[in-house]
Protein backbone atom coordinates (compact mmCIF):
# COMPACT_ATOMS: atom_id res chain seq x y z
CA UNK A 1 0.00 0.00 0.00
CA UNK A 2 2.84 2.37 0.87
CA UNK A 3 4.43 1.77 -2.51
CA UNK A 4 1.16 2.60 -4.20
CA UNK A 5 0.90 5.83 -2.26
CA UNK A 6 4.44 6.80 -3.21
CA UNK A 7 3.63 6.00 -6.81
CA UNK A 8 0.50 8.13 -6.58
CA UNK A 9 2.56 11.04 -5.28
CA UNK A 10 4.95 10.69 -8.20
CA UNK A 11 2.08 10.65 -10.69
CA UNK A 12 0.55 13.69 -9.02
CA UNK A 13 3.84 15.49 -9.33
CA UNK A 14 4.22 14.52 -12.98
CA UNK A 15 0.69 15.75 -13.67
CA UNK A 16 1.36 18.99 -11.84
CA UNK A 17 4.53 19.56 -13.86
CA UNK A 18 3.35 18.51 -17.32
CA UNK A 19 -0.34 19.37 -16.97
CA UNK A 20 -0.05 21.70 -19.94
CA UNK A 21 0.64 18.69 -22.22
CA UNK A 22 -1.27 15.93 -20.41
CA UNK A 23 -4.71 17.60 -20.39
CA UNK A 24 -4.86 18.35 -24.15
CA UNK A 25 -3.52 14.85 -24.91
CA UNK A 26 -6.23 13.29 -22.73
CA UNK A 27 -8.90 15.46 -24.35
CA UNK A 28 -7.62 14.52 -27.80
CA UNK A 29 -7.79 10.81 -26.96
CA UNK A 30 -11.27 11.14 -25.46
CA UNK A 31 -12.56 13.00 -28.53
CA UNK A 32 -10.91 10.50 -30.87
CA UNK A 33 -12.40 7.47 -29.11
CA UNK A 34 -15.85 9.10 -28.89
CA UNK A 35 -15.99 10.07 -32.56
CA UNK A 36 -14.62 6.73 -33.76
CA UNK A 37 -17.23 4.96 -31.65
CA UNK A 38 -20.02 7.14 -33.04
CA UNK A 39 -18.81 6.42 -36.57
CA UNK A 40 -18.61 2.70 -35.85
CA UNK A 41 -22.09 2.39 -34.37
CA UNK A 42 -23.92 4.83 -36.72
CA UNK A 43 -21.63 5.70 -39.63
CA UNK A 44 -24.31 6.54 -42.20
CA UNK A 45 -22.65 9.69 -43.52
CA UNK A 46 -19.55 8.65 -45.41
CA UNK A 47 -17.88 12.06 -45.23
CA UNK A 48 -17.80 11.99 -41.44
CA UNK A 49 -16.35 8.49 -41.48
CA UNK A 50 -13.09 9.72 -42.93
CA UNK A 51 -10.24 9.49 -40.46
CA UNK A 52 -8.98 12.90 -41.52
CA UNK A 53 -12.19 14.63 -40.38
CA UNK A 54 -12.15 12.73 -37.09
CA UNK A 55 -8.51 13.64 -36.45
CA UNK A 56 -9.04 17.33 -37.23
CA UNK A 57 -12.07 17.55 -34.92
CA UNK A 58 -10.24 15.64 -32.17
CA UNK A 59 -7.29 17.99 -32.51
CA UNK A 60 -9.56 21.01 -32.22
CA UNK A 61 -11.21 19.47 -29.15
CA UNK A 62 -7.84 19.06 -27.48
CA UNK A 63 -7.40 22.79 -26.90
CA UNK A 64 -10.96 24.10 -27.02
CA UNK A 65 -13.27 23.90 -23.99
CA UNK A 66 -14.83 20.56 -23.09
CA UNK A 67 -18.24 21.60 -24.32
CA UNK A 68 -16.91 21.84 -27.88
CA UNK A 69 -16.30 18.10 -27.78
CA UNK A 70 -19.85 17.47 -26.58
CA UNK A 71 -21.22 19.73 -29.28
CA UNK A 72 -19.28 17.99 -32.06
CA UNK A 73 -20.27 14.56 -30.75
CA UNK A 74 -23.95 15.63 -30.79
CA UNK A 75 -23.49 17.10 -34.26
CA UNK A 76 -21.88 13.90 -35.55
CA UNK A 77 -24.79 11.85 -34.20
CA UNK A 78 -27.43 14.13 -35.72
CA UNK A 79 -25.66 14.32 -39.11
CA UNK A 80 -25.25 10.53 -39.29
CA UNK A 81 -28.92 10.10 -38.47
CA UNK A 82 -29.85 12.76 -41.00
CA UNK A 83 -28.05 10.76 -43.68
CA UNK A 84 -29.98 7.68 -42.54
CA UNK A 85 -33.41 9.24 -42.18
CA UNK A 86 -34.69 12.73 -41.49
CA UNK A 87 -37.23 11.51 -38.92
CA UNK A 88 -34.55 9.94 -36.71
CA UNK A 89 -32.44 13.10 -36.90
CA UNK A 90 -35.40 15.30 -35.92
CA UNK A 91 -36.33 13.20 -32.89
CA UNK A 92 -32.75 12.92 -31.60
CA UNK A 93 -32.11 16.62 -32.17
CA UNK A 94 -35.29 17.43 -30.22
CA UNK A 95 -34.07 15.14 -27.43
CA UNK A 96 -30.69 16.89 -27.27
CA UNK A 97 -32.35 20.31 -27.27
CA UNK A 98 -34.71 19.39 -24.43
CA UNK A 99 -31.81 18.03 -22.37
CA UNK A 100 -29.80 21.17 -22.94
CA UNK A 101 -32.66 23.58 -22.29
CA UNK A 102 -33.91 21.88 -19.15
CA UNK A 103 -30.88 20.55 -17.41
CA UNK A 104 -27.46 21.38 -18.84
CA UNK A 105 -28.16 25.07 -18.62
CA UNK A 106 -27.77 24.60 -14.87
CA UNK A 107 -24.64 22.51 -14.88
CA UNK A 108 -22.65 22.80 -18.10
CA UNK A 109 -19.78 20.87 -16.54
CA UNK A 110 -21.90 17.76 -16.17
CA UNK A 111 -22.37 17.44 -19.91
CA UNK A 112 -19.28 15.25 -20.05
CA UNK A 113 -21.27 12.53 -18.29
CA UNK A 114 -23.66 12.37 -21.24
CA UNK A 115 -20.62 11.60 -23.35
CA UNK A 116 -18.98 9.13 -21.01
CA UNK A 117 -22.07 7.15 -19.92
CA UNK A 118 -22.94 5.83 -23.42
CA UNK A 119 -19.25 5.15 -24.00
CA UNK A 120 -18.94 3.06 -20.84
CA UNK A 121 -22.20 1.27 -21.71
CA UNK A 122 -20.93 0.22 -25.11
CA UNK A 123 -17.67 -0.95 -23.52
CA UNK A 124 -19.72 -3.23 -21.23
CA UNK A 125 -18.72 -1.36 -18.08
CA UNK A 126 -22.03 0.47 -17.65
CA UNK A 127 -21.79 0.92 -13.88
CA UNK A 128 -18.57 2.89 -13.94
CA UNK A 129 -20.22 6.24 -14.63
CA UNK A 130 -23.00 5.97 -11.99
CA UNK A 131 -20.35 4.94 -9.46
CA UNK A 132 -18.01 7.76 -10.43
CA UNK A 133 -20.85 10.30 -10.43
CA UNK A 134 -22.02 9.17 -6.99
CA UNK A 135 -18.48 9.36 -5.62
CA UNK A 136 -17.59 12.77 -6.97
CA UNK A 137 -20.81 14.57 -7.69
CA UNK A 138 -24.00 15.64 -6.04
CA UNK A 139 -27.42 13.95 -6.10
CA UNK A 140 -28.12 16.07 -9.22
CA UNK A 141 -25.51 13.98 -11.06
CA UNK A 142 -28.20 11.28 -11.18
CA UNK A 143 -29.94 13.43 -13.82
CA UNK A 144 -26.74 13.72 -15.89
CA UNK A 145 -26.10 9.99 -15.81
CA UNK A 146 -29.80 9.40 -16.56
CA UNK A 147 -29.52 11.63 -19.64
CA UNK A 148 -26.46 9.62 -20.71
CA UNK A 149 -28.47 6.40 -20.36
CA UNK A 150 -31.28 7.92 -22.47
CA UNK A 151 -28.82 8.85 -25.23
CA UNK A 152 -27.26 5.38 -25.17
CA UNK A 153 -30.66 3.64 -25.28
CA UNK A 154 -32.05 5.67 -28.16
CA UNK A 155 -28.87 5.22 -30.23
CA UNK A 156 -28.87 1.51 -29.47
CA UNK A 157 -32.54 1.29 -30.42
CA UNK A 158 -31.89 3.04 -33.72
CA UNK A 159 -28.86 0.96 -34.65
CA UNK A 160 -30.64 -2.28 -33.63
CA UNK A 161 -33.69 -1.44 -35.74
CA UNK A 162 -31.93 -0.18 -38.85
CA UNK A 163 -33.40 -2.89 -41.06
CA UNK A 164 -36.97 -2.31 -39.78
CA UNK A 165 -36.62 1.44 -40.33
CA UNK A 166 -35.21 0.83 -43.79
CA UNK A 167 -38.12 -1.40 -44.69
CA UNK A 168 -40.63 1.41 -44.01
CA UNK A 169 -41.34 3.32 -47.24
CA UNK A 170 -39.94 6.79 -47.68
CA UNK A 171 -43.46 8.01 -48.44
CA UNK A 172 -44.73 6.79 -45.12
CA UNK A 173 -42.74 9.31 -43.11
CA UNK A 174 -45.22 9.51 -40.24
CA UNK A 175 -45.05 5.78 -39.60
CA UNK A 176 -41.27 5.94 -39.51
CA UNK A 177 -41.41 8.92 -37.21
CA UNK A 178 -43.82 7.13 -34.89
CA UNK A 179 -41.53 4.14 -34.79
CA UNK A 180 -38.64 6.36 -33.66
CA UNK A 181 -40.70 8.24 -31.05
CA UNK A 182 -41.94 4.90 -29.70
CA UNK A 183 -38.33 3.97 -29.23
CA UNK A 184 -37.94 7.03 -27.06
CA UNK A 185 -41.20 7.10 -25.11
CA UNK A 186 -42.16 3.44 -24.79
CA UNK A 187 -38.70 2.05 -24.37
CA UNK A 188 -38.84 -0.11 -21.25
CA UNK A 189 -35.14 -0.96 -21.45
CA UNK A 190 -34.35 2.73 -21.31
CA UNK A 191 -36.61 3.33 -18.33
CA UNK A 192 -35.09 0.44 -16.40
CA UNK A 193 -31.57 1.63 -17.21
CA UNK A 194 -32.28 5.24 -16.22
CA UNK A 195 -33.94 4.11 -12.98
CA UNK A 196 -31.08 1.74 -12.13
CA UNK A 197 -28.39 4.33 -12.85
CA UNK A 198 -30.16 7.10 -10.92
CA UNK A 199 -30.69 4.79 -7.93
CA UNK A 200 -27.02 3.80 -8.05
CA UNK A 201 -25.84 7.42 -8.04
CA UNK A 202 -28.07 8.24 -5.07
CA UNK A 203 -27.08 5.14 -3.06
CA UNK A 204 -23.37 5.71 -3.69
CA UNK A 205 -23.69 9.39 -2.80
CA UNK A 206 -25.61 8.73 0.42
CA UNK A 207 -23.29 5.97 1.64
CA UNK A 208 -20.01 7.73 0.84
CA UNK A 209 -21.17 10.71 2.90
CA UNK A 210 -21.67 8.55 5.99
CA UNK A 211 -18.99 8.71 8.62
CA UNK A 212 -17.99 5.09 8.31
CA UNK A 213 -14.60 3.53 7.86
CA UNK A 214 -14.15 2.62 4.19
CA UNK A 215 -17.35 4.49 3.33
CA UNK A 216 -16.17 4.93 -0.26
CA UNK A 217 -15.53 1.24 -0.83
CA UNK A 218 -18.80 0.24 0.83
CA UNK A 219 -20.58 2.82 -1.33
CA UNK A 220 -19.07 1.37 -4.51
CA UNK A 221 -19.95 -2.22 -3.66
CA UNK A 222 -23.47 -1.27 -2.55
CA UNK A 223 -23.92 0.83 -5.69
CA UNK A 224 -22.89 -2.06 -7.95
CA UNK A 225 -25.25 -4.43 -6.13
CA UNK A 226 -28.13 -1.94 -6.35
CA UNK A 227 -27.53 -1.42 -10.07
CA UNK A 228 -27.42 -5.15 -10.76
CA UNK A 229 -30.51 -5.82 -8.64
CA UNK A 230 -32.44 -2.97 -10.30
CA UNK A 231 -31.57 -4.22 -13.79
CA UNK A 232 -32.52 -7.81 -12.89
CA UNK A 233 -35.82 -6.82 -11.27
CA UNK A 234 -36.63 -4.52 -14.18
CA UNK A 235 -35.89 -7.32 -16.60
CA UNK A 236 -38.16 -9.70 -14.68
CA UNK A 237 -41.08 -7.27 -14.39
CA UNK A 238 -41.06 -5.60 -17.80
CA UNK A 239 -39.26 -8.26 -19.77
CA UNK A 240 -36.66 -5.87 -21.11
CA UNK A 241 -34.06 -7.24 -23.45
CA UNK A 242 -31.08 -6.24 -21.36
CA UNK A 243 -28.42 -8.90 -21.75
CA UNK A 244 -27.56 -9.69 -18.17
CA UNK A 245 -24.46 -11.84 -18.63
CA UNK A 246 -22.17 -9.12 -20.09
CA UNK A 247 -23.36 -6.84 -17.32
CA UNK A 248 -22.55 -9.44 -14.66
CA UNK A 249 -19.11 -9.88 -16.21
CA UNK A 250 -18.61 -6.13 -16.57
CA UNK A 251 -19.69 -5.30 -12.99
CA UNK A 252 -16.40 -6.33 -11.30
CA UNK A 253 -14.47 -4.40 -13.96
CA UNK A 254 -16.59 -1.30 -13.33
CA UNK A 255 -15.97 -1.73 -9.62
CA UNK A 256 -12.23 -2.16 -10.09
CA UNK A 257 -12.01 0.90 -12.35
CA UNK A 258 -14.04 2.98 -9.89
CA UNK A 259 -11.64 1.90 -7.14
CA UNK A 260 -8.69 2.87 -9.33
CA UNK A 261 -10.25 6.25 -10.06
CA UNK A 262 -10.85 6.81 -6.36
CA UNK A 263 -7.22 6.02 -5.65
CA UNK A 264 -5.67 8.23 -8.29
CA UNK A 265 -8.08 11.04 -8.84
CA UNK A 266 -10.74 11.48 -6.22
CA UNK A 267 -8.65 10.88 -3.16
CA UNK A 268 -5.97 13.46 -3.84
CA UNK A 269 -6.01 17.18 -3.66
CA UNK A 270 -5.93 17.93 -7.31
CA UNK A 271 -2.99 20.17 -8.05
CA UNK A 272 -1.93 21.75 -11.29
CA UNK A 273 0.58 24.24 -12.54
CA UNK A 274 -0.75 27.77 -12.68
CA UNK A 275 0.48 30.38 -15.09
CA UNK A 276 -0.61 33.84 -13.97
CA UNK A 277 0.25 37.40 -14.89
CA UNK A 278 -0.29 40.53 -12.86
CA UNK A 279 1.37 43.85 -12.19
CA UNK A 280 1.76 46.48 -9.52
CA UNK A 281 3.24 49.98 -9.61
CA UNK A 282 6.80 48.71 -9.82
CA UNK A 283 6.79 45.35 -11.63
CA UNK A 284 5.13 43.06 -14.13
CA UNK A 285 4.90 39.56 -12.69
CA UNK A 286 4.83 36.45 -14.85
CA UNK A 287 4.44 33.66 -12.36
CA UNK A 288 4.55 29.94 -12.96
CA UNK A 289 3.38 28.26 -9.78
CA UNK A 290 4.33 24.57 -9.76
CA UNK A 291 2.75 22.39 -7.06
CA UNK A 292 5.31 21.02 -4.64
CA UNK A 293 6.03 17.33 -4.87
CA UNK A 294 6.51 15.83 -1.47
CA UNK A 295 7.22 12.16 -1.64
CA UNK A 296 6.97 10.62 1.77
CA UNK A 297 9.24 7.64 1.43
CA UNK A 298 8.75 4.89 4.01
CA UNK A 299 10.82 5.31 7.19
CA UNK A 300 13.87 3.09 7.28
CA UNK A 301 15.06 1.28 10.35
CA UNK A 302 18.62 -0.01 10.02
CA UNK A 303 19.82 -2.41 12.62
CA UNK A 304 23.49 -3.24 12.56
CA UNK A 305 25.27 -5.54 14.91
CA UNK A 306 29.07 -5.50 14.98
CA UNK A 307 31.33 -7.76 16.99
CA UNK A 308 34.52 -6.24 18.43
CA UNK A 309 37.47 -8.56 17.64
CA UNK A 310 40.22 -7.18 19.93
CA UNK A 311 38.56 -7.97 23.26
CA UNK A 312 39.67 -11.10 24.99
CA UNK A 313 36.17 -11.89 25.91
CA UNK A 314 34.11 -11.47 22.85
CA UNK A 315 31.39 -8.97 23.44
CA UNK A 316 28.64 -7.92 21.19
CA UNK A 317 27.81 -4.29 20.77
CA UNK A 318 24.62 -3.31 19.14
CA UNK A 319 24.14 -0.05 17.47
CA UNK A 320 20.83 0.95 16.20
CA UNK A 321 20.49 3.60 13.64
CA UNK A 322 17.10 4.92 13.05
CA UNK A 323 16.88 6.94 9.96
CA UNK A 324 13.80 8.69 8.98
CA UNK A 325 13.93 10.00 5.50
CA UNK A 326 11.40 12.53 4.46
CA UNK A 327 12.73 14.36 1.54
CA UNK A 328 11.14 17.22 -0.29
CA UNK A 329 11.75 17.49 -3.98
CA UNK A 330 10.94 20.17 -6.43
Amino acid at each position, binding site marked *: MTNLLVWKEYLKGIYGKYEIYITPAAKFLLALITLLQINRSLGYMSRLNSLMVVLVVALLSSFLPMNFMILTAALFIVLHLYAFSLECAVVVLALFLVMF*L*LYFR*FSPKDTVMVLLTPMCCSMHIPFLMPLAAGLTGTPASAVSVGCGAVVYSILRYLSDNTSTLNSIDEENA*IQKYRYVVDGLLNNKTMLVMVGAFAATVLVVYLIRRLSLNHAWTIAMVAGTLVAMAALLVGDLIWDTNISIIPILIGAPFSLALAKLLQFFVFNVDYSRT*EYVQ*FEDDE*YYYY*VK*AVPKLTVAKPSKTVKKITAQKRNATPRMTGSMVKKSNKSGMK
Partner: protein
Amino acid sequence: MLNEERIRLMTKMAAYEENEGKRNMAIGHYFRSDYISLQMMKSVISATLTFAIVLGILIFYDFEAVMKEVYQIDLMETGRKLLLIYVIFTGIYTLISYLVYSYRYSRAKKSLKKYYSHLQTLSDLYEDDSRRQEPFLRG
Protein backbone atom coordinates in the same frame (compact mmCIF):
# COMPACT_ATOMS: atom_id res chain seq x y z
CA MET B 1 12.07 45.33 -3.82
CA LEU B 2 10.31 42.02 -4.32
CA ASN B 3 8.16 40.97 -1.43
CA GLU B 4 7.68 37.19 -1.40
CA GLU B 5 4.63 37.19 0.83
CA ARG B 6 2.95 39.69 -1.44
CA ILE B 7 3.78 37.70 -4.58
CA ARG B 8 2.38 34.55 -3.02
CA LEU B 9 -0.87 36.30 -2.17
CA MET B 10 -1.10 37.93 -5.58
CA THR B 11 -0.47 34.60 -7.33
CA LYS B 12 -3.23 32.94 -5.35
CA MET B 13 -5.61 35.77 -6.14
CA ALA B 14 -4.70 35.79 -9.85
CA ALA B 15 -5.29 32.03 -10.03
CA TYR B 16 -8.68 32.53 -8.37
CA GLU B 17 -9.54 35.33 -10.80
CA GLU B 18 -8.72 33.09 -13.74
CA ASN B 19 -10.66 30.03 -12.64
CA GLU B 20 -13.44 30.05 -10.10
CA GLY B 21 -13.39 33.79 -9.60
CA LYS B 22 -14.33 34.63 -13.17
CA ARG B 23 -17.79 33.11 -12.77
CA ASN B 24 -18.28 34.45 -9.27
CA MET B 25 -17.32 37.98 -10.32
CA ALA B 26 -19.82 37.85 -13.16
CA ILE B 27 -22.49 36.95 -10.60
CA GLY B 28 -21.18 39.51 -8.11
CA HIS B 29 -21.80 42.39 -10.54
CA TYR B 30 -25.54 41.97 -10.12
CA PHE B 31 -27.81 42.77 -7.25
CA ARG B 32 -29.41 39.63 -5.89
CA SER B 33 -32.86 40.43 -7.23
CA ASP B 34 -31.51 41.40 -10.68
CA TYR B 35 -29.46 38.24 -11.01
CA ILE B 36 -32.22 35.90 -9.91
CA SER B 37 -34.92 37.55 -12.03
CA LEU B 38 -32.67 37.44 -15.11
CA GLN B 39 -32.03 33.74 -14.60
CA MET B 40 -35.73 33.09 -13.98
CA MET B 41 -36.55 34.87 -17.21
CA LYS B 42 -34.12 32.61 -19.05
CA SER B 43 -35.78 29.64 -17.33
CA VAL B 44 -39.21 30.72 -18.56
CA ILE B 45 -37.86 30.92 -22.12
CA SER B 46 -36.20 27.49 -21.79
CA ALA B 47 -39.39 25.96 -20.39
CA THR B 48 -41.48 27.52 -23.17
CA LEU B 49 -39.17 26.20 -25.88
CA THR B 50 -39.15 22.75 -24.31
CA PHE B 51 -42.93 22.74 -24.07
CA ALA B 52 -43.18 23.75 -27.74
CA ILE B 53 -40.74 21.02 -28.82
CA VAL B 54 -42.50 18.28 -26.84
CA LEU B 55 -45.94 19.44 -27.99
CA GLY B 56 -44.72 19.51 -31.60
CA ILE B 57 -43.37 15.97 -31.32
CA LEU B 58 -46.59 14.68 -29.78
CA ILE B 59 -48.84 16.41 -32.35
CA PHE B 60 -46.78 15.04 -35.21
CA TYR B 61 -46.90 11.59 -33.59
CA ASP B 62 -50.70 11.54 -33.78
CA PHE B 63 -50.87 13.74 -36.82
CA GLU B 64 -53.62 11.82 -38.64
CA ALA B 65 -55.85 11.64 -35.55
CA VAL B 66 -55.28 15.33 -34.80
CA MET B 67 -56.16 16.34 -38.34
CA LYS B 68 -59.30 14.20 -38.25
CA GLU B 69 -60.52 15.54 -34.95
CA VAL B 70 -59.45 19.13 -35.31
CA TYR B 71 -62.92 20.21 -36.44
CA GLN B 72 -64.76 18.18 -33.83
CA ILE B 73 -62.90 19.03 -30.64
CA ASP B 74 -63.67 22.05 -28.50
CA LEU B 75 -60.69 24.24 -29.34
CA MET B 76 -61.20 26.57 -26.40
CA GLU B 77 -61.32 23.70 -23.93
CA THR B 78 -58.20 22.03 -25.42
CA GLY B 79 -56.40 25.37 -25.45
CA ARG B 80 -57.30 25.94 -21.81
CA LYS B 81 -56.01 22.48 -20.86
CA LEU B 82 -52.76 23.02 -22.73
CA LEU B 83 -52.31 26.42 -21.14
CA LEU B 84 -52.83 24.91 -17.69
CA ILE B 85 -50.23 22.22 -18.36
CA TYR B 86 -47.85 24.86 -19.70
CA VAL B 87 -48.30 27.09 -16.64
CA ILE B 88 -47.80 24.23 -14.19
CA PHE B 89 -44.70 22.96 -16.04
CA THR B 90 -43.14 26.40 -16.37
CA GLY B 91 -44.03 27.28 -12.77
CA ILE B 92 -42.33 24.19 -11.34
CA TYR B 93 -39.26 24.64 -13.54
CA THR B 94 -38.93 28.31 -12.67
CA LEU B 95 -39.32 27.56 -8.97
CA ILE B 96 -36.49 25.01 -9.15
CA SER B 97 -34.30 27.49 -11.02
CA TYR B 98 -35.10 30.15 -8.39
CA LEU B 99 -33.84 27.84 -5.64
CA VAL B 100 -30.72 26.86 -7.59
CA TYR B 101 -29.75 30.40 -8.52
CA SER B 102 -30.39 31.93 -5.11
CA TYR B 103 -28.11 29.28 -3.64
CA ARG B 104 -25.49 30.02 -6.29
CA TYR B 105 -25.70 33.75 -5.67
CA SER B 106 -25.13 33.42 -1.95
CA ARG B 107 -22.24 31.00 -2.54
CA ALA B 108 -20.59 33.35 -5.03
CA LYS B 109 -20.96 36.28 -2.65
CA LYS B 110 -19.38 34.32 0.18
CA SER B 111 -16.43 33.38 -2.02
CA LEU B 112 -16.00 36.95 -3.24
CA LYS B 113 -16.00 38.20 0.35
CA LYS B 114 -12.94 36.05 1.00
CA TYR B 115 -11.32 37.42 -2.14
CA TYR B 116 -11.96 41.01 -1.03
CA SER B 117 -10.46 40.26 2.36
CA HIS B 118 -7.33 39.06 0.55
CA LEU B 119 -7.35 42.34 -1.37
CA GLN B 120 -7.43 44.18 1.95
CA THR B 121 -4.48 42.14 3.23
CA LEU B 122 -2.61 42.96 0.03
CA SER B 123 -3.20 46.66 0.38
CA ASP B 124 -2.04 46.47 4.02
CA LEU B 125 1.17 44.79 2.84
CA TYR B 126 1.76 47.61 0.35
CA GLU B 127 1.21 50.19 3.05
CA ASP B 128 3.68 48.43 5.34
CA ASP B 129 6.21 48.45 2.54
CA SER B 130 5.84 52.11 1.78
CA ARG B 131 6.05 52.98 5.48
CA ARG B 132 9.28 51.00 5.72
CA GLN B 133 10.73 52.77 2.72
CA GLU B 134 9.80 56.27 3.87
CA PRO B 135 12.71 56.84 6.34
CA PHE B 136 15.19 55.90 3.60
CA LEU B 137 13.54 58.28 1.18
CA ARG B 138 13.63 61.07 3.73
CA GLY B 139 17.23 60.31 4.75
